[in-house]
């Protein structure tokens, strides 16, 4: 399932996938896979993404 909230939050911060990936210490393709719904990140990576985008886990990863 696509993670549109993540994509919207990244766009709101004017970050590219590459920039967000660098902030989280992962590859650009991993961020892309998460946004497309092709990969479920670990809680550790979820927290890193939330910190980079100033959002909570509920905001980005809970339905």
């Amino acid at each position, binding site marked *: 399932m696509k993670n549109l909230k993540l994509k919207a939050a990244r766009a709101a911060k004017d970050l590219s*996938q590459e920039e967000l990936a660098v902030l989280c210490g*992962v*590859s650009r393709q*991993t961020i892309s896979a998460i946004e497309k719904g092709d990969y479920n*990140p670990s809680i550790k*990576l979820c927290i890193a993404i939330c910190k980079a985008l100033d959002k909570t886990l509920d905001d980005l990863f809970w339905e």
Partner: protein
Amino acid sequence: MDKAFDFLTGVVLVVVIAVVVYLIRKEEPKDRQYDERQLALRAEGYKRGFQTAVVAGALAIFLVELEIVPLASATLAMFVAFMIGLVTFAVYCIMRDVFFRVGEKGTYYLGLCAVIVLSDGVAAVVQIVDGSILENGVPTFSGCNALVMALSFLVILVALLIRKYAGERDE
């Protein structure tokens, strides 16, 4: 004398490649790692490469050792099976962007593959032209290893180029 020259040529080539790789890798940061998605997919890649090598090896033994079809020497058949497994792993990882570490560009891998394809390709062409690829009408390891290496790394090089240009288009 010929064998000594061939050995010396091989040693010189290995030294040249090692120096090129050292100089290129010296420029790269040392702290690059694989991220969690990459590790998971690489594990799947290792599994598929191993399974492919086992199946190819079993098929090679079945065909060659039982002399059902005199395709090749047993050594060459097992070497081909090993390279098929290696190429399976490499192509699987390359096409899923998990071959290189986070932030690693992989330019030197492209150069290295190109050098291997070129050097082994030239050796293979020479062996085909002078007929040393066959021994008593059967391909042998010593006659065909250059050809197998050249073809294997050509497949890997093509996969690297496809991902490089597809990745640039994605961005």
